[in-house]
């Protein structure tokens, strides 16, 4: 196996090309979904509102991964690390320095953007399985970093930190859960719209050009290094905000909350939702929250196996995730209209 033999590969891109128009929903559908999200909490128990809030939080984190993988074609198993940085930033600022929770979000976002941008630098040289291993290393390192002795005065070490749940402001007559839900909803929608616009912009086109063919993109004059690290930064920043919101909603942060399992769950969410299809993020998020519950109700002793089987059936039926379902529906609708 001499090193002189060079393999020449015309490699299919790891992530298939998704045209940018196919990345979003039509106006009508968007408004219907929005209306549902606004009205639904008025009719359900607080516990369901809590679950819906978590749905949005994980949705945001899946969206962030989607921008990175679906947008710029870089694979990451390290999203849990950025999520943890965001969560701990909010928790530490709120509990140790009495900062208002709203103000902690931009701080988390900025910090994670910086962290992601820096991590993107060495990651530039890596792709495919190598990038997977590098990001995986980041995810396994994060809980251990949070446990470090000399950080304990801030992080609370292995015991974690309890976070105080904010009340609704201005004396609004709603429960804490409902307030947090609407607060999260507004932020999620804002970030969603910003992401859609980002991918439609010049930068977004640059991301996708890199995703589809890096060498061709650089030949066209795109600064590949800059845009790749930028994608990492943006993705990490959004993940950080999701982490912050998660910490406030759950009221607790601990190293055990942010293990590689979380990163894998977010990855599964992206695949099930459809890689590169932003609205699918919420479908993916629903999958990772509710399917384990369903699996558990089928069999306790085998809940892991049932989850695996359900996951497999889903990807078997729709290998392209919820996007595929959406496309099929759209085509059916178009056919119906034509008639």
């Amino acid at each position, binding site marked *: *196996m001499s*090193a002189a*033999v*060079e*393999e*020449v*590969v*015309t*490699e299919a891109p*790891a*992530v*298939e090309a998704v045209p940018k128009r196919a990345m979003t929903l039509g106006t009508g559908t968007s408004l219907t979904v929005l209306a549902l999200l606004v009205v639904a909490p008025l009719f359900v128990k607080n516990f369901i509102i809590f679950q819906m809030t978590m749905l949005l939080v994980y949705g945001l984190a899946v969206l962030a991964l989607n921008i990175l*993988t679906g947008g710029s074609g870089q*694979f990451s198993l390290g999203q849990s690390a950025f999520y943890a940085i965001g969560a701990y930033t909010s928790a530490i600022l709120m509990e140790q320095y009495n900062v208002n929770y709203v103000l902690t979000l931009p701080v988390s976002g900025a910090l994670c953007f910086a962290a992601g941008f820096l991590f993107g630098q*060495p990651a530039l*040289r*890596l792709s*495919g*399985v*190598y990038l*997977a*291993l*590098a990001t*995986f*290393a980041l995810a*396994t*390192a994060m809980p*251990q*970093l949070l*446990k*470090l*002795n000399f950080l304990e005065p801030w992080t609370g070490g292995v015991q974690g930190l309890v976070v105080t749940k904010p009340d609704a402001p201005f004396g609004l007559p709603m429960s804490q859960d409902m307030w947090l839900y609407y607060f999260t909803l507004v932020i999620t929608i804002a970030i969603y719209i910003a992401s859609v616009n980002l991918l439609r912009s010049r930068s977004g086109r640059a991301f996708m050009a890199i995703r589809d*063919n890096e*060498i*061709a993109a650089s*030949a066209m004059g795109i600064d590949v290094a800059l845009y790749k690290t930028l994608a990492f930064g943006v993705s990490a920043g959004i993940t950080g905000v999701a982490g912050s919101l998660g910490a406030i909603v759950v009221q607790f942060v601990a190293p055990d909350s942010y293990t590689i399992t979380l990163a*894998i769950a977010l*990855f*599964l969410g*992206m*695949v*099930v939702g459809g*890689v590169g299809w932003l609205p699918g993020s919420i479908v993916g998020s629903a999958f990772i929250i509710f399917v384990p519950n369903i699996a558990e109700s089928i069999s306790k*002793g*085998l*809940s*892991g*196996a*049932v*989850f*695996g*089987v359900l*996951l*497999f059936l889903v*990807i*078997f039926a729709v*290998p*392209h*995730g919820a996007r595929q379902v959406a496309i099929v529906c759209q085509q059916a609708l178009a056919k119906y209209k034509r008639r």
Partner: protein
Amino acid sequence: MELFINQILAGISTGAIYACMALAVVMIYQAIDHLNFAQGEMAMFSTFISWQLMQWGMPYWAAFFITIALSFAGGIAIERVMFKPLAKAPILTNVAGFIALYSIINSSAGLIWDFTIKQYPTPFGSAPFLGSQLISTHQAGMIGVTILLLIGLYAFFRYTRVGLAMRAAASLPESARLVGINTSWMIALGWGMAAAIGSIAGMMIAPVVFLEPNMMLGVLIYGFAAAVLGGLTSPFGAVIGGFLVGIFENLAGTYIPGIGNELKLPIALALIISVLVVKPAGLFGRPIVKRV
């Protein structure tokens, strides 16, 4: 100095575990061109099967070879049933499939055999090897088995028609089909061989770490790291990578003051990544040139 030598020896003995697993990783990478996250669990399940056979009274070596055969068949069956239908699906969907498989195997093993740890016999005994208490005869035997496997794999990929066909099918599927290679069955064969090698790794590792459903979790991480460090296309590199990871991890834990011990896995991984930044195909891998 004595501590230094001892840590190197301890590193070699843990490195043997990683090297064994890394070989299985390289095998599957050669066959399907990506990493299988469920590989460790498949090895664990095989090891449980051999344990069960021995519980039923079968002698060690009979159980050993029957398990290898069963694992080979099992690997092919998994590929035919679960992953052949996904052959046309995107790579990331396949990765999700590996995670599903991981979850299924781990959970089933827990239900069948419980989570209490089980003693697993070694055919080599566990006396000190050549007077060093740090390496036992079992570990020496494990290193021996790893080297035998390595030679076998090297010969297989280099000199047999099937081995060459398999490499061709993995790296250039379309051209391979054009020259008459049945790429679909090559992939299945690769799964079978990877499962068989994994079962050997599992049966070698179990006497050291004890048999239980989560035993391969950590091993697989290190096995991946070792394979990537050595170069995913080179069985030789994977074995060297395994020993290097084992030694380096121990030295980092011992000599980096303060955080070395608490962060030895992250430090080891960081080092591997720095190596990859300089040599993206790993220490012994072939560089890949992409075409537009």
